[in-house]
């Protein structure tokens, strides 16, 4: 736990001077507290366990996440020197697509939460894609069925937890992504808990009509999911209920999937505004206004946000599966560095990549290439190449993947990028940010508040209770903290791009049937 440099003291008790955000992420649960100018005054954090019971499975204990939530809330308040009555509202941002089913009477989860990294439903989804309903899904929810989304996981639970379908139809159990689980518990759990989700999380289930923002009966029928188990879909900024535990008396004013929260936190309210969040993976989202863009490049159409009494705003999303994860691999599997930030020290010992390229297609290539049988490569090795060159190639892989997604997005939307707003932990790596600017040939800018995910959730909650009057006020909170200008010559950019493209070609078609060295086969 860390303490803030200078906690802002409240003017008087109960003054509702601050807004809290719960950031329920893949590895930890955090509570951050913000003041009216969007400045963070406290942060508390607890990690939870990752369970990998079988190859390809990734689970969380939803009860542990709830206990951690109850721990971080008072810790953050204590750091800031605040009481619950000093909070105008609390908002929630959560890891998306992670699926929880719980007993409405006891409040206990009926099974471990299946996380977004879990691939157990991929076969079920392949079957779905071969069947007649694949087009219906694409048409109604805007998504090509994939194991990545929540509904196949819910179907898996219905198939494997004894008696679950019957109990679901009787309304004895509830389904939700993590924000639903937390809101239900915060508002009383078995004793009157509110069972809701927000439009952005619902848009990642594969069950919501992306136009009406309601559950679609045809999609429910296609997966045989009883409507009784589903939460009610609500806008992002709205008082869903009042906390009875954790932050007693504080209204819950908003919820968001984490990447949409970051888009909102970066105040990308106008069509054409985009942000890229660099973490384990990297997620580029562009606000497309009231328009739903159909991608020709495998990008995803999703809901950006919906405010009360306004038409919903949409976004187009491109995800890079392996960004910071490649640095972690370089640290943990190759043991080239002891901490992730040290990669910059290593990479700065050399001027360039020495002809070496790394393509981290660990689980195939994602957007915009979508090649599941590709695998990662390290190419261009000569006796000249040192681990410093490898370090540079590791960082450049994230830069080039960003460029590919930016190009696909510009082609799909017809909107040219004029710059890129970035956030997330990897923005502390100045070499990487310079590389991104160089390969995009665009300026890259970082906001003063890099915790965009939490800030977005806080903004939604604060808007719901009129702590902030409107979006324009939130825009005024955005300040540029750093800006990287492109400094690579066009000739060098073309040459390096050609090198990257040739490296990518070498990843293709690596996995062949019966191949004994593919990770999944070796692991099973």
């Amino acid at each position: 736990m860390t303490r803030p440099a200078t906690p802002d003291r409240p003017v008087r008790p109960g003054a509702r001077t601050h807004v809290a955000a719960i950031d329920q992420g893949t590895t930890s649960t955090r509570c951050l507290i913000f003041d009216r100018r969007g400045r963070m005054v406290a942060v508390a954090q607890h990690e939870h366990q990752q369970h990998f019971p079988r190859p390809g499975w990734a689970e969380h204990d939803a009860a542990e996440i709830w206990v951690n939530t109850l721990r971080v809330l008072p810790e953050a308040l204590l750091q800031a020197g605040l009481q619950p009555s000093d909070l105008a509202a609390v908002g929630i941002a959560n890891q998306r697509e992670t699926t929880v089913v719980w007993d409405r009477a006891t409040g206990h989860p009926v099974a471990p939460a299946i996380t977004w990294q879990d691939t157990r439903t991929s076969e079920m989804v392949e079957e779905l894609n071969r069947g007649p309903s694949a087009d219906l899904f694409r048409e109604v929810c805007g998504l090509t069925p994939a194991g990545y989304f929540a509904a196949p996981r819910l179907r898996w639970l219905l198939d494997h937890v004894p008696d679950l379908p019957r109990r679901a139809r009787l309304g004895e159990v509830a389904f939700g992504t993590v924000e639903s689980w937390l809101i239900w518990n915060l508002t009383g759990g078995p004793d009157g808990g509110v069972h809701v989700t927000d439009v952005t999380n619902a848009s990642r289930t594969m069950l919501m009509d992306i136009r009406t923002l309601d559950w679609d009966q045809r999609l429910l029928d296609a997966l045989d999911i009883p409507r009784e188990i589903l939460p009610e879909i609500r806008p992002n900024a709205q008082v869903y209920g009042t906390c009875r535990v954790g932050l007693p008396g504080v209204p819950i004013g908003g919820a968001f999937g984490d990447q949409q929260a970051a888009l909102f936190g970066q105040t990308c309210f106008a069509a054409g505004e985009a942000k890229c969040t660099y973490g384990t993976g990297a997620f580029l989202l562009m606000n497309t206004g009231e328009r739903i863009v159909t991608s020709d490049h495998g990008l995803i159409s999703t809901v950006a946000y919906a405010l009360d009494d306004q038409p919903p705003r949409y976004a187009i999303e491109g995800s890079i599966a392996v960004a910071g994860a490649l640095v972690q691999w370089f640290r943990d599997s190759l043991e080239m560095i002891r901490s992730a930030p040290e990669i910059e020290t290593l990479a700065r010992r050399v001027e360039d990549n020495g002809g070496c390229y790394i393509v981290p297609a660990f689980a195939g290539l994602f957007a915009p290439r979508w090649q599941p049988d590709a695998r990662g490569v390290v190419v261009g090795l000569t006796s000249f190449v040192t681990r410093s060159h490898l370090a540079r190639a590791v960082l450049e892989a994230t830069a080039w993947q960003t460029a590919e997604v930016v190009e696909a997005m510009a082609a799909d939307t017809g909107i040219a990028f004029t710059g890129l707003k970035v956030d997330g932990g990897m923005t502390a790596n100045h070499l990487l940010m310079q590389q991104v600017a160089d390969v995009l040939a665009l300026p890259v800018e970082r906001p003063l508040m890099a915790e965009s995910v939490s800030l977005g959730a806080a903004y939604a909650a604060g808007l719901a209770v009129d702590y902030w009057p409107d979006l324009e006020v939130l825009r005024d909170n955005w300040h540029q903290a750093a800006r990287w200008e492109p400094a690579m010559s066009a000739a060098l950019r073309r040459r390096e791009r050609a090198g990257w493209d040739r490296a990518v070609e070498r990843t293709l078609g690596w996995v062949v049937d019966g191949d004994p060295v593919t990770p999944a086969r070796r692991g099973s």
Partner: protein
Amino acid sequence: MSGPIQSIERAAAVLHFLGAVPEPVALGDLARALGLPKPTTHGIVRTLLGVGFVVQDPESGHYAIGGGLTRLGETLDPHLLRSRAANWADGLAARTGLEVQLGILSGSAVELLHHVFRPDDSPQRLRVGELQPLHATALGLALLAFSPAAVRPRDLVMTAYTPATVTRALDLTRAVQQTARRGWSLADGTYRPGVAALAAPIRHHVGVGVGALAVVGLRERVLTPAGEPLPGLLEQLVAAGSAISDRLEERL
């Protein structure tokens, strides 16, 4: 010249012995092996335990060589420092409305390791990697006062950047001493005219300075007309510096 110091010799013997045995050792065995009285041996290992050179198995109570020794020769990675400092540097800029710089020693200069723009959305240039003179900047004074530097004031080339720049070694030595005494440094128009800065050390392990954190801005945004730090500013700066220091002690 005095002879060898017995307690240091004995401590070294304890470390040599613990480093040579494969398993943690009981206090009695350690004392016997070194031919020392048990209370003396106990005093030595407890002291070494306190500085992290020896660890004690919580169950058996036996002693083994500690991780502090292997880390002795390591310097703090500058980019790890930046990563740990980033949120606090942002917070400091947000609260003070001033530009924030994080500097480390690089030969006989300050190297800017991190830079947060003044949050007023005016056009600014990222200064990361820039070298600044030690004698003319608040960062430089803080590094000279708190970091184990190979440079001494009298070895520096003391260019006059403004009429206010300190150019005599004696004056610089005094400024460094004053900085060490009060725990922060001040530069009033000594590098750029009309620009003032305050800096505080970032410390690691037993208080060794590994970098310095500064707020930089137009003189009237940093200092009173009399040249004192504006009320509250110093507290914010020093608190951010010590919060970063605390974060450096956390495990990787």
